[in-house]
């Protein structure tokens, strides 16, 4: 394919670029104790939570933003960010979809997320987060019948404060890292899931995130607890409107799996990546960690990262329980001037713990893609095993792929395997497809999907289709 064709194809714009015109109840930019107290008061939070937020804020003030990641950006002015924004509503909160601001529903429709229909058809309960406050939750009755709690985090704070107090920060403490600490001080809302003992959650749980108000950092907080012998699969998907200035997103996700419990957490992330020159786009600095606290428990992360200007994210597993299993399956793409530094940590503490890491990085345009992964086997982890496979695909001459594996083994019986490869979409593969009559873009998508197949097959069916479509959009015409 020649260069002008390429340039035209690469120069396509973001399909989900629009802004919904909704009045926001936004506090002035800046962060101090008063702002934290205001957030907590607006949410009528119990004292323990306010105290926890304040401790996080005090700690955050002693910290500096990390610089070790393989990404470059201007320093973030944390005083220019507004830390609270809620869509205005005439009532205190919508009781059903009928009460939801029609503008919001319109936005979901544009995104192809018609809550009321698609959710029902797909058997998916959707806890939709619009800016910082959850506005609609569906399928509550069916979940309630199974005893599953799936609600906005702020609601869980009121209805199940004992669970929040017991588990919040137990996997990602407020001292964990700069952005997790910031999140702990100012988190707005998010999802809460509790699956009781022995219950297999009757449907996939899904949340669609969206960033909307200008200059509003978003600080989601998600907590999922799978009690002994339970199973849950959780889907997270995101799109964002077109925007000029960078938006900070610093979410925290904590997962806890008790004895024999299984959590599957899947993400398809499609935030605005910035324009072709690299202007704008979301900064996605996220802390995701799961703890296999009980024996025979299993936590599985699957992510498809196509969006954001900068992605900085390491969904990790702490394998504390004996025989517990951690998995990480990832596809990360960077096009234009996108940067991604992503990977995982597998911390083996219990005996006979096992972990699998499969990472597929795709770089196109001027994209920079780094895999950063840590496998740590503690002295207590007799019989621990890890398998890591890390593949990079380069498209064009200006992109980069980097691999930073950290392996720290303190138990001599552990088996740790690492395989890595870097390849290009070859002109031969492309020509082979063209010669069979398959168009240029379909051919690229086909080859890239093949490269990612091991990860896609881990996604729930519906999501896999969506992920493949997103990948196609984010890489269209990126072959050189």
């Amino acid at each position, binding site marked *: 394919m020649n260069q002008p064709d390429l340039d035209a194809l690469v120069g396509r714009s973001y399909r989900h670029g629009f802004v919904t015109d909704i009045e926001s109840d936004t506090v002035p930019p800046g962060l101090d104790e008063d702002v934290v107290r205001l957030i907590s008061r607006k949410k009528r939070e119990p004292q323990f939570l306010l105290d926890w937020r304040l401790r996080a804020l005090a700690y955050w003030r002693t910290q500096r933003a990390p610089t070790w990641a393989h990404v470059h950006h201007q320093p973030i002015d944390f005083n220019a960010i507004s830390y609270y924004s809620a869509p205005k509503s005439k009532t205190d909160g919508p009781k059903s979809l009928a009460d939801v601001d029609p503008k919001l529903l319109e936005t979901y429709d544009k995104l192809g997320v018609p809550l009321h229909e698609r959710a029902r058809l797909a058997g998916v309960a959707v806890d939709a987060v619009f800016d910082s406050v959850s506005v609609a939750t569906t399928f509550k009755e069916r979940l309630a019948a199974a005893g599953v709690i799936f609600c906005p985090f702020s609601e869980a704070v009121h209805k199940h404060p004992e669970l929040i107090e017991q588990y919040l920060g137990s996997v990602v403490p407020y001292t964990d890292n700069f952005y997790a600490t910031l999140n702990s001080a100012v988190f707005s809302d998010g999802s809460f899931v509790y699956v009781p003992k022995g219950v297999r959650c009757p449907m996939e749980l899904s949340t669609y995130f969206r960033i909307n108000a200008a200059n509003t950092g978003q600080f989601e907080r998600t907590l999922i607890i799978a009690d002994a012998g339970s199973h849950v699969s959780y889907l997270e998907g995101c799109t964002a409107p077109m925007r000029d200035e960078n938006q900070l997103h610093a979410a925290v996700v904590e997962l806890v799996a008790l004895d024999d419990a299984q959590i599957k957490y899947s993400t398809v992330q499609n935030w605005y990546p910035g324009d072709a020159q690299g202007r704008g786009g979301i900064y996605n600095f996220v802390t995701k960690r799961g703890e296999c606290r009980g024996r025979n428990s299993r936590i599985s992360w699957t992510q498809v990262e196509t969006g954001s200007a900068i992605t900085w994210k390491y969904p990790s597993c702490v394998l504390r329980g004996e025989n517990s299993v951690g998995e990480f399956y990832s596809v990360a793409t960077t096009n234009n001037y996108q940067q991604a530094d992503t990977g995982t940590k597998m911390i083996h503490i219990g005996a006979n713990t096992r972990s699998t890491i499969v990472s597929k990085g795709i770089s196109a345009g001027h994209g920079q893609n780094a895999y950063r992964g840590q496998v740590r086997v503690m002295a207590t982890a007799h019989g621990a095993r890890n398998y890591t496979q890390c593949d990079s695909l380069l498209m064009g001459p200006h992109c980069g792929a980097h691999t930073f594996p950290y392996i720290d083994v303190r138990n001599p019986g552990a088996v740790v395997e690492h395989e890595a490869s870097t390849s290009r979409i070859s002109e*031969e593969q492309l020509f*082979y497809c063209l010669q069979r009559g398959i*168009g240029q873009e379909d051919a690229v998508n086909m080859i890239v999907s093949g490269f990612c197949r091991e990860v896609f097959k881990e996604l729930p069916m519906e999501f896999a289709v969506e992920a493949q479509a997103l990948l196609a959009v984010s890489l269209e015409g990126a072959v050189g």
Partner: protein
Amino acid sequence: MNASGAEPLLEIDNLHVSVGGQQVLRGLNLAVNAGEVHAIMGPNGSGKSTLAHVLAGRPGYEITQGSVRYQGSDLLALPAEARARAGLFLGFQYPVEIPGVNNAYLLKTALNAQRRQRGLPDIDAFDFLALVRERMKLMQIEESFLARGVNEGFSGGEKKRNEILQMLILEPRLALLDETDSGLDIDALKVVARGVNSLRSPERAVVLVTHYQRLLDHVVPDFVHVLARGRVVRSGDRSLALELEKRGYDWVQEQAVA
């Protein structure tokens, strides 16, 4: 114009092609009518594979002179995928592996791309499976093959049989087979020949690019052309291939110089 008064399916006129500044084809002429099988033979470096690739539209070749008409229009003006959709098929000498993309998916996508071009709807999944199974039987390919990655971990013979299978499903009007016989044992060669012969019809033409004449025992050509230094230096019928085998390529090359 040919004997029947119709325009040839493929007409190559004075074709000059260079690769990286090296002249590879230097004034090649060839006309192929529907219903014919042509064999193009020649020593290594004579331009056989270049010809096949240029006709299929592979990037990296510079056409410095001459023209190619296919079904009455300018073939060289079309991008590779449009040539394929117009019924031009290239069986590759070294089919590439595409990991993670299964054979059935590639085949179906290719078939549908060509059907759309002809204004036909996408093929029904069951019809597709029935079609593929029938052709696989002819090519002696096992069912499990469909779920495997394209050419992934295939033996040389499997790759070549896969090329012919694809050809039988896409049913091209003009098939260019680039050294499809190389690296095949005699049994595999017979299977491949059976596949090619099953495609022969008054509407189609086949161009076999080959170094050896043994394939021609099984797929009997109407015409044989010998390529040397980028041009057709001799054309004849089947007996030319046999003579070549006896006397070697030096014989025609000497004649070409003379």
